[in-house]
């Protein structure tokens, strides 16, 4: 058997790791172990020179195993696997020890953190000894795409993919396309008609021969894997149809916050208090009037309703400030004599043309009043018979430091946005995760913002977090580009860390078949043994833990590898066992 030669690389990550972990000491200690041919520490292992270091060592020293001790494998495992591949070594003969996210960043005692780093690297060393070369498998890509959600994001993705001549199934729950944008009158900051822009898009979608639109349709079930998905839909809640496709774009959007839970604003209790979305409807109809038909003389617009507040949502809903300025401008044009109050917490005017809209608004006789979002909220109450208005809003004005009363005949609550109630259901169907606020989680917050941890599933628009129209469209097109890329390749590499059955050891008890969530295991009647369909297997390893005879190997997480990893964690001494491998 070939002698095992391991290279160990301990990353400083600048000061991120080196500040709390004595990286030189870790490398020195690990260098003492048998089979470790080289142990180095380096400032940034993920940098090009860092990777070159590994590649050169593999070539010069004939390394056949590599351990990198750095950040989380979720960040850079792939980077280093690629480096191994470049050097001609199988990428799976590699293991990472996470000494940043799970060590240097969470501990305060350098001695303890260094001790922990040594344990983790030693464990990785023990595990990598038993790693086996695995060859990547590829599957063909079905060139069709499923887009879930017919809002502006979903439609943009569909158009882009269809424009390249590929089939798209666009599924929308509601009766018509358009989503949230269909409820808007004008868009900020340019105050253009939302409807004009939307209708153009809808018309293009309806005319495109490559897009099959299913409105009033829910998705019953999605199964399969990247390149080969299948789903069951029931258009108009009638008979079921099955669709086949290779990629999925999730563009399910968001919903608005219900302000009736905020007692201070008395929404639903007093007549002329509207959510921004109700007011939008008023603008579309062209009549800004109170319930009794009279136009308001005083209009107050309250910002951050349900947003940026620990009691409701901590995050910023992103579009409300600019929408509020849009309203103020529309109100000023429609009611030249009315008093308009913007009651805001902080004005968020980032983005092209937005600060300019703010500046324009401030020149149109609009009163800006600030309240402290951390302090008590403004309180709306019914005005007395002698007041010349319907309501009075009391607030602590932050800039003047005074308690003031604002007259209002109409109040617009700038409601925040939140994940839809069915987000969890969608997440389950396509196998993606949600963050604490129930928005879907992208694969990497910076480097991979539209992909997800499930291959072939992309998230675009507001289902990933509050977003305006241009950003939603950018994301949609980014996802389309990613999908067209995989379609152009024709095939995609799939999970190689699957399970397989050693037929010699299999006793035919079929326990594995019962625990497999993917029905990937079947029973060969003649041989009386289990068999894993590796295309269906996703590598969870549950069957491996249930197998009573040890016949099932979960590749890359084998019993032997994990048991050795445990030993590596617990045994401080230099292991003579290592030499025998």
């Amino acid at each position, binding site marked *: 058997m070939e002698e095992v030669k391991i290279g160990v690389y301990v990353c400083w990550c600048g000061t991120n790791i080196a500040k709390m972990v004595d990286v030189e000491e870790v490398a020195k200690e690990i260098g003492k172990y048998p089979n470790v041919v080289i142990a180095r520490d380096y400032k940034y292992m993920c940098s090009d020179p860092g990777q070159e270091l590994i590649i050169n060592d593999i070539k010069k020293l004939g390394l056949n195993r590599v351990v990198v001790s750095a950040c989380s494998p*979720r960040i850079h495992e792939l980077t280093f696997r690629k480096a191994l591949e470049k050097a001609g070594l199988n990428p799976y003969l590699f293991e990472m020890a996470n000494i940043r996210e799970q060590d240097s960043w969470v501990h305060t005692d350098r001695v303890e953190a260094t001790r922990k780093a040594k344990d983790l690297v030693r464990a990785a060393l023990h595990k990598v000894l038993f790693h086996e070369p695995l060859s990547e498998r590829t599957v063909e890509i079905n060139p069709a795409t499923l887009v879930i959600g017919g809002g502006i994001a979903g439609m943009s993705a569909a158009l882009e993919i269809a424009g390249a001549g590929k089939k798209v199934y666009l599924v929308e729950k509601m009766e018509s396309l358009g989503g949230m944008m269909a409820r808007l009158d004008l868009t900020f900051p340019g105050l253009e008609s939302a409807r004009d822009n939307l209708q153009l898009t809808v018309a293009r979608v309806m005319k495109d021969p490559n897009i099959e639109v299913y409105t009033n349709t829910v998705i019953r079930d999605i199964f399969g894997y990247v390149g080969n998905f299948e789903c069951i839909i029931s258009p108009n809640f009638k008979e079921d149809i099955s669709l086949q496709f290779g990629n999925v774009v999730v563009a399910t959007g968001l919903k608005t916050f219900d302000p009736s839970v905020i007692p201070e604003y008395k929404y639903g209790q007093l007549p002329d208090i509207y959510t921004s979305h109700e007011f939008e409807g008023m603008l579309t109809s062209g009549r800004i009037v109170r319930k009794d038909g009279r136009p308001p003389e005083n209009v107050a617009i309250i910002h951050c309703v349900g947003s940026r507040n620990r009691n409701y949502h901590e995050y910023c809903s992103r579009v409300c400030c600019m929408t509020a300025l849009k309203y103020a401008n529309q109100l000023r044009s429609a009611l030249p004599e009315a008093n308009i109050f913007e009651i805001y917490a902080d004005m968020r005017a980032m983005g092209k043309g937005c600060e300019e809209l703010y500046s324009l608004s401030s020149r149109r006789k609009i009163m800006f009043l600030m309240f402290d979002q951390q302090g008590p909220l403004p309180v709306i109450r019914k005005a007395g018979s002698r007041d010349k208005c319907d309501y009075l809003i009391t607030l602590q004005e932050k800039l003047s430091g005074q308690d003031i009363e604002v007259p209002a005949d109409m109040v617009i609550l700038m409601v925040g946005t939140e994940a839809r109630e069915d987000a969890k259901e969608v997440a*389950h169907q396509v196998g993606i*995760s949600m963050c604490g606020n129930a928005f879907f989680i992208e694969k990497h917050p910076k480097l991979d913002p539209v992909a997800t941890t499930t291959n072939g599933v992309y998230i675009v628009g507001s289902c990933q977090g509050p977003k305006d129209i241009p950003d939603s469209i950018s994301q949609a097109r980014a996802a389309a580009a990613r999908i067209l890329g995989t379609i152009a390749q024709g095939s995609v590499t799939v999970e190689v860390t699957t399970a397989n059955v050693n037929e010699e050891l299999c006793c035919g008890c079929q326990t594995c078949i019962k625990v497999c969530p993917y029905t990937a295991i079947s029973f060969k009647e003649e041989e009386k043994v289990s068999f894993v369909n590796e295309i269906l297997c996703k590598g969870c390893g549950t069957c*491996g833990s249930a197998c009573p005879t040890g016949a099932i190997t979960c590749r890359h997480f084998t019993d032997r590898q994990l*048991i050795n990893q445990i030993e590596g964690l617990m045994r401080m001494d230099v292991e003579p066992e290592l030499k025998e491998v």
Partner: protein
Amino acid sequence: MEFQPKIIAFLCNWCSYTGADLAGTSRIKYAPNIRVIRVMCSGRVDPTFVLKSFTEGADGVLICGCHPGDCHYHEGNYKCLRRYHLLVKYIEQMGIRPERLRLEWVSASEGKIFAEIVNEMVQTVKALGPSEVKTVVETLT
């Protein structure tokens, strides 16, 4: 010197390992006694791994998986839960205090909760003292 236990934690890749990473990116501090082993799913945690950890001298074993209903592989965490209940009984019969084995659900967004669980468990295990297994081994050798 205060007893510093060593606790082995098996974390599922999709929820709990990501949650532990989030504790890191959020710079939430917790006790350094935990040593993490990443598995793809809590369903992969073979009872042998838990017993092996105890025989190797771990003072505690923590298993973390996705919340019920949120498993990346649909139901691996339920399989883990069933094995956990059996394991607790088993280790108790072996003379290991059942509090040394713990199963918790930690989602990808629960970095803070992960840190709290670790701290709590370290406290519990510190109070229990070194693992009964170690005492037996020391007596025998």
